[in-house]
């Protein structure tokens, strides 16, 4: 859903991850992840979550702050993400850019990403270098230098990021508009990267205030996964982070969406090659059992080539080039279940929408067969096992659960999925996937001439080189 926005585009792992996140569900039933996790809370309120994993001599060090676009105010949208960028601009001990340079000199990669609910920073590096991120991350939690001369160009960088990710990407504009229509009261109304006009008006004072409100030990979680010994690493973390003054955890209460009173439709007319349709329904998150049922529904609709939407819309009827279903299970506040399709050339968005609705109605009408239900559960469980492969993902799963509820809930996923019955699927589809709870977004392409190279001799051609 394009909710994760990160600082640099040179590696696309995070965006891929965002797409797969719905499947990041949880652990192999036989080996509960949480059995191997240890949790400590320092006296200043900082929570430390450690998971030893000795399969490779690597470590991922992550600091997650419980602040994202949901914490922003109208007129200051995108401030969380702007601050994420500024976190690399130095402290009184570390010069601008020195953070990343130091990590790179140690053979590590670092980056950060922001969502509706959190801002996360990570360093992946050899396990014998773990002291480096401990000292750098505690330093910037302890105090950030925010200077006008670095802020001004960085704000332009963020504006370029918005143009790149959203403004020149018709699918992203459609999602942004659909979210803005589906949420009227809840802060998920606005995009993580913020509205362009807000970005242009940020000030250094906005950032200072925001940093002081939210970048506190009591509002943060440190997660370390990899080839280390807890007895070695925990004292290092305690020494480095323990001295940072605690302060109060910020108020995290936000407005919640009121029940929707009828179907909403929006149209986005934009230069694009193909039409798209998205249908978004308000749903509960991981805190309610229905959240797990919706995971299964997501898998039935779109996991794998044999899934219902792929089979019918993409392969058999060739109505859509691509389809997707996405349940936002790991969301701090209740979020959306979306189904979407990119319309095949020559087909209409009406036909595609009818087919999508047809599949929803089928879920509401017929009980899913035992074998198909088992298939969906197998897919979700296998995906969970596969997702354990990388230390970074393991850290990300634990941290996301911690932000949303508690990391301990990671163990509830597979049993939660396994307990879903065919009747649950039908009841849940009848309860949430109904027109009155739906916002439909349609991307209507404005036809334009196909892009073609300017012919030699035409007036706008110029030779910059040679």
């Amino acid at each position: 859903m394009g909710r994760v926005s990160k600082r640099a585009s040179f590696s696309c792992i995070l965006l891929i991850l965002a797409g797969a996140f719905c499947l990041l569900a949880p652990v192999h039933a036989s080996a509960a992840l949480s059995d191997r996790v240890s949790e400590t809370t320092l006296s200043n309120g900082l929570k430390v979550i450690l998971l030893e994993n000795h399969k490779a001599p690597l470590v991922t060090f992550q600091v997650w702050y419980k602040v994202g676009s949901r914490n922003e105010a109208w007129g200051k949208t995108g401030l969380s993400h702007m601050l994420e960028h500024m976190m690399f601009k130095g402290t009184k001990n570390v010069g601008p850019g020195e953070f990343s340079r130091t990590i790179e000199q140690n053979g590590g990669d670092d980056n950060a990403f922001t969502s509706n609910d959190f801002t996360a920073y990570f360093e992946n590096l050899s396990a014998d270098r773990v002291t480096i991120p401990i000292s750098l991350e505690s330093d910037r939690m302890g105090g950030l230098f925010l200077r006008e001369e670095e802020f001004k160009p960085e704000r332009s960088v963020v504006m370029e990021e918005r143009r790149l990710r959203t403004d020149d990407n018709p699918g992203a504009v459609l999602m942004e508009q659909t979210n803005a229509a589906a949420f009227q009261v809840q802060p998920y109304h606005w995009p993580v990267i913020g509205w362009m006009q807000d970005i242009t008006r940020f000030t250094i004072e906005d950032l200072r205030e925001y940093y002081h409100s939210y970048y506190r030990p009591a509002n943060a979680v440190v997660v370390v996964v990899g080839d280390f010994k807890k007895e070695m690493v925990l004292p290092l973390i305690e020494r480095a982070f323990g001295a940072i003054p605690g302060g109060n955890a910020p108020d995290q209460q936000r407005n919640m969406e009121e029940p929707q009173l009828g179907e909403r439709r929006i149209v986005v007319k934009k230069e694009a090659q193909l039409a798209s349709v998205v249908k978004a329904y308000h749903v509960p998150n991981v805190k309610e059992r229905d959240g797990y049922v919706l995971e299964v529904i997501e898998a039935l609709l779109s996991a794998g080539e044999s899934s219902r939407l792929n089979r019918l819309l993409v392969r058999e009827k060739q109505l859509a080039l691509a389809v997707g279903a996405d349940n936002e299970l790991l969301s701090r506040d209740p979020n959306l279940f979306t189904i979407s399709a990119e319309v095949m050339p020559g087909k209409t968005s009406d036909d595609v929408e009818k087919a999508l609705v047809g599949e929803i109605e089928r879920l509401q009408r017929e009980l899913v067969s035992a074998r198909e239900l088992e298939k969906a559960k197998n897919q979700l469980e296998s995906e969970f096992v596969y997702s354990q492969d990388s230390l970074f993902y393991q850290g990300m799963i634990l941290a996301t659960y911690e932000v949303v509820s508690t990391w301990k809930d990671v163990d509830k996923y597979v049993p939660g999925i396994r307990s879903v019955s065919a009747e649950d699927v039908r009841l849940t589809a009848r309860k949430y996937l109904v027109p009155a709870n739906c916002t439909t977004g349609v991307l209507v392409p404005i036809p334009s001439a196909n892009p073609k190279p300017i012919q030699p001799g035409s007036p706008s051609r110029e030779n910059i080189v040679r």
Partner: protein
Amino acid sequence: MRRLLLSACLVVCSIAIFSGSAFSLPPIQRFVLDNGLVLLISEEHSLPFITFQFIVKTGSKDDPPGQEGLASLSASSLPLGCAGRTTQQIHEELDFMGAAISSGANEDYTAISLRALRKNVDRAFPIVMDILTVPTFPVQEVKKEISRTLGAIQSSEDQPGVVAEKAFEKALYNGGPYGHPTEGTRESVAKLNREMVSAFHRTYYHPNNTIVVVVGDVDDGLLKKEIRPMLEKWQRKAVPQWKGRTPSPGKGRTVKIDKPVTQSNIVIGSTGMSRDNPDYYAAQVMNYIFGGGSLSSRLMEDIRNKRGLAYSVSSYFQAQKNSGSFEVLLQTKTASTNESIAAVMEDVGVIRAELVSQAEIEDAKKYLVGSFPQRFSSQSKITSFFGQVEYYGLGLEYPKEYPSLINSVTREDVLRIARTYLNPDCFITVVVSDLEAAQGK
């Protein structure tokens, strides 16, 4: 088991590459089967699943003229049917196991991947072998695959970065085998058919043209019982030698493409090098300093951090089997198009004129050598690492050699690389932009 290997050569490699940090590589075994197939195995038992990758040594460089996109279509058509199974049955069975497959081609090679829980490998692996060795390419399904490809080509025109890259490759490779998009063009794909796909498969999909990498929860028992026997049944056949010629690159020029977007997508570059070029390692060091992935490269410092002109600006050498390019990529608001191009050219001028500093080259070496173990941080990374080591003929000693290949690069080497490969006279510049807005400042 070793007695059964016959002509197989076995190399077990477990080497500490850092004197200081006792880093050990994932274990790797290499077998050459009687039918010529190369099998690479890396065992790691912490999680109960296995990743397989088949690399068939054919890609879009082998597309016959007029049939651009054929290697890619052949790869994506593999799961459309195989002996005794329809496409729906193939996917139904694999999905039921929670197994994931994918197949696709790049310029150089075709990769078919399978990921499955260990308990399901005895059922999933034979399906993938059937897809690979006895695909049926049902005519109706291939037709649908062609329409999907055409739709995807059309859809990709909404991505200005993709449009720019395609135009750059077309201009640089000048009608040669690397000059067309892997997936083909609207014109060429519309002319493809089932017979062409089937003929392409018959020509290139042979064991003596294939590498198989198996990583994860695999052991001798599984290998001997399930995996090797199936691979050994596959019959060797002659594979044509690559006779492609890379034409001399198109001469330096600017290509402009009009598109109603808010940013200019810019590619600046020229001919680079193939993967076997001895300059490759010096080029990696030069590129890291100039614009490689790092957040502290010169381009990043200058164009992003100092001038705030772009979110993403980077450079890279794309080194392929028989060809390669050097490219700078960036996106900037239309009004700063010319300013950004001028800034890149200025940075090119500096790295061609002066030796890089001692600190810069040391930082580059520390990163390139120090980050090497990250290439083994997941099953899929280990799989693609060893697949490429084999495909590009780097040898299993490569991880051991890598630090000295990098550490032996000098500041003079970096200057020589910059002067050889970053030659503004040869640069092809592609700008995808709202041209009127970009022009009017």
